[in-house]
């Protein structure tokens, strides 16, 4: 037994020696960076190569590096919900000035770490939770989903549109509702099918979801997940699709992809980092509308019905998507004529509008 333990000690020591030796030829520690160099770190929920959500955030990070002077950035990709708290704490420990956590899934992990590091600014995307040193930022994507819904509603032949839905939270309900209202504003017969994959990033499940909806007669697929897999699967099945997240999503299926509601995060990142540097940062919930450029709808592609681009232009920027009258999918009037839903109601959305052929899963919403 002593021998066995001895062997392990030898392994431990040699590991240390080997790695320490590896360290020696490295250059001496760089001189302390000047005071004004800002260090920003990004915690991503998926891989930067997902061509979707995380890809768009990483473009925002690169925009920040290119457009703001004296900024250093880094990122951690594919951080799991379970690991998030430890990884965010790591970055705070490593001395980053601003830490962006780019998923609603990281909301609570960010909120748990923020009070431990009062000198670090934390910014969580789409979680709508703030603290003394924690802000929240997002864009009104439902406006672009509404406009994309117009394109889908004009193009569909079977009057059946489908939505590949990721995680069961109010944000996704809101986007499904926006798309449905858009489609039904031009084609009142449209019905929206919803399939949940219970993940932001799960290509096999995304493929299966598209296939099941196409089998059921859906001919326009909205993707709500972080990848372009639904777009390319729809293309293989010969049906139209609407991309999401990255403005290059339609490159995955240029013939049948109609348009893409997508994100332009760069300016928000630049604004936040500048504000932190100037000392003007304050606790805030940023929720930028389409007219400010955070949310974009790409040009409508050639596969779309004639006149779709004109209809989109007429509806832009979709400021009144959730203004009455709006009925829910059980026929009840939820928003009266002349009224609009408040931001709080949008953040807690827990019912489907008329035309959504599904039920909101149990537990979704604010209690």
């Amino acid at each position, binding site marked *: 037994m002593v021998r066995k333990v001895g062997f392990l000690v030898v392994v431990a020591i040699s590991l240390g020696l080997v790695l320490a030796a590896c360290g020696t030829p490295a250059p001496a520690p760089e001189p302390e960076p000047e005071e004004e160099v800002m260090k920003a770190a990004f915690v991503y929920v998926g891989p930067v190569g997902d061509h979707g959500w995380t890809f768009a955030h990483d473009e925002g990070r690169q925009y920040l590096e290119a457009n703001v002077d004296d900024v250093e950035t880094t990122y951690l990709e594919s951080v799991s919900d379970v690991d998030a708290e430890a990884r965010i704490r790591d970055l705070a420990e490593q001395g980053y000035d601003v830490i962006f956590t780019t998923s609603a899934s990281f909301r609570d992990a960010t909120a748990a770490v923020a009070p431990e590091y009062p000198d670090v600014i934390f910014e969580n995307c789409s979680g709508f939770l703030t603290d003394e040193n924690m802000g929240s930022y997002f864009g009104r994507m439902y406006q672009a989903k509404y406009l994309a819904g117009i394109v889908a509603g004009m193009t569909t032949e079977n009057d059946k549109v489908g939505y590949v839905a990721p995680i069961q939270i109010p944000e996704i309900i809101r986007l499904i509702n926006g798309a449905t209202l858009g489609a039904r504003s031009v084609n009142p017969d449209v019905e929206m099918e919803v399939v949940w994959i219970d993940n932001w990033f799960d290509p096999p499940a995304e493929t299966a979801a598209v296939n099941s909806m196409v089998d059921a007669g859906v001919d326009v697929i909205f993707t709500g997940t972080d990848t372009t897999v639904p777009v390319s699967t729809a293309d293989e099945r010969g049906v139209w699709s609407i991309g999401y997240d990255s403005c290059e999503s339609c490159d995955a299926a240029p013939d049948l992809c109609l348009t893409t509601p997508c994100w332009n995060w760069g300016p928000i990142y630049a604004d936040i980092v500048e504000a932190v540097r100037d000392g003007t940062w304050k606790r805030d919930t940023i929720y930028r509308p389409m007219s400010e450029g955070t949310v974009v709808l790409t040009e409508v592609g050639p596969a779309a019905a004639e006149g779709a681009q004109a209809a989109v232009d007429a509806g832009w920027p979709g400021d009144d998507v959730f203004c009455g009258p709006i009925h829910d999918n059980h026929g009840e009037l939820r928003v009266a004529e002349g009224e609009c839903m408040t931001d709080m109601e949008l953040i807690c959305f827990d019912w489907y509008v008329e035309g959504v052929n599904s039920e909101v899963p149990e*537990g979704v919403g604010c209690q």
Partner: protein
Amino acid sequence: MESSRGRALPRLRGFSIRLEPRLDVPRWLPYAVPVASLIVALILGMIPMMMQGINPLTGYRDMFLLAFGSAYGISETIMKAIPLMLTGLGVALAFRMLVWNIGAEGQLYMGAFGACLVAYTWPDTPGWVLLPLMIVGGFIGGALWGAIPGALLAFLGVSEIITSLMLNYIAIQWISFLVIGPWQDPTSLGFPRTTRLSGGATLPPITEAWYLPTVVFLAIAGVVLLYWIVRRTSDSREKIKLIVGYAVLAILSVGSIWFLSGLRVHLGLVLSLAAAAVLSVLLSRTRWGYEVRVIGENARAARYAGMSLKRNIILVMMISGGLAGLAGMSEIAGNLHLIKRVFSPGYGYTAIIVAWLARLNPWGVILVSLLLGGLYRGSDAIPGAPKALGMMLQAVIFFVLIGGEVLVRYRVRLDRGT
């Protein structure tokens, strides 16, 4: 040209590589092989690093510093190591008896279930009552899950490799059901997770408040030891051994409170070390431990000697599962404080590698867990590197380390001709 090629080929074909069992293993070999394996693995790992445009030397340095370069880093490494220690101990025990428990992952999940069942049933109970109950609940959850493949093997001869593995998926799905169903936090907006455990249900982190109970414990242990040395031990070498062991224990426990207080490491570390101590005493000093070893070495002989195979298989699977269950309990109560859907990154599977590299020795499991915990931490958290790189490095190091073990027991012979 043609002719020389023609001659060379049959000669090449004439070589054959054979593995020959070593008759006697040189003393230095079991230490040298893993060291050499590690060096080979690190060199192989440089290839994917360079393909990513990362200087492998600074890459390894960064990994090492992340894992062991600061008190914070060491604390986070220990956080990763705690579930590896407990699952590794469980797997090592089962493997001692040649019972191949591949189900530590599922047993870990069921342990978390058992512990949380207790915690959510009596949330307002004070910690000193609730935590012991949760430890029992976690152990029972894992033990019952381990008993199923144990009983199937003992009574029906069904391969425990298959059943224990398959039960993992059922356990993980059961937890998934709970976190989007009956146990889902109503304030989570819909995210799949349970409500946060009450304060009494969380394993406390190591703080300076621990000095007093530790000193009291050491004092009591010292008195007992003194009595033992004066009255029961006659051999002076034995006396020295006991005194040195006590000194090491005292220095380590007080020193680690000093080093780790204020960081995240929690009571689960003490739980793991206690489990290793108990297991090591059970295996080396008791009749039952002797039975486990004999059955592992020669089941037929053990049966002739009157040892019950059935009883021991079920018992070992239950203790093995129970230890994995404790890992689930400590991960939830000490680290996460709530259950998320897939909350273990495969600790129960890495446990198999831990047990193997530790050569099934309890204290070896503790040490290997710390090293692999460091590897996990170092390769998971490199800023700006692709996630897959860290996973590739882990895989290369595991693969080469395990593969290298062959060279301890066999020698490679290159034969010419047949």
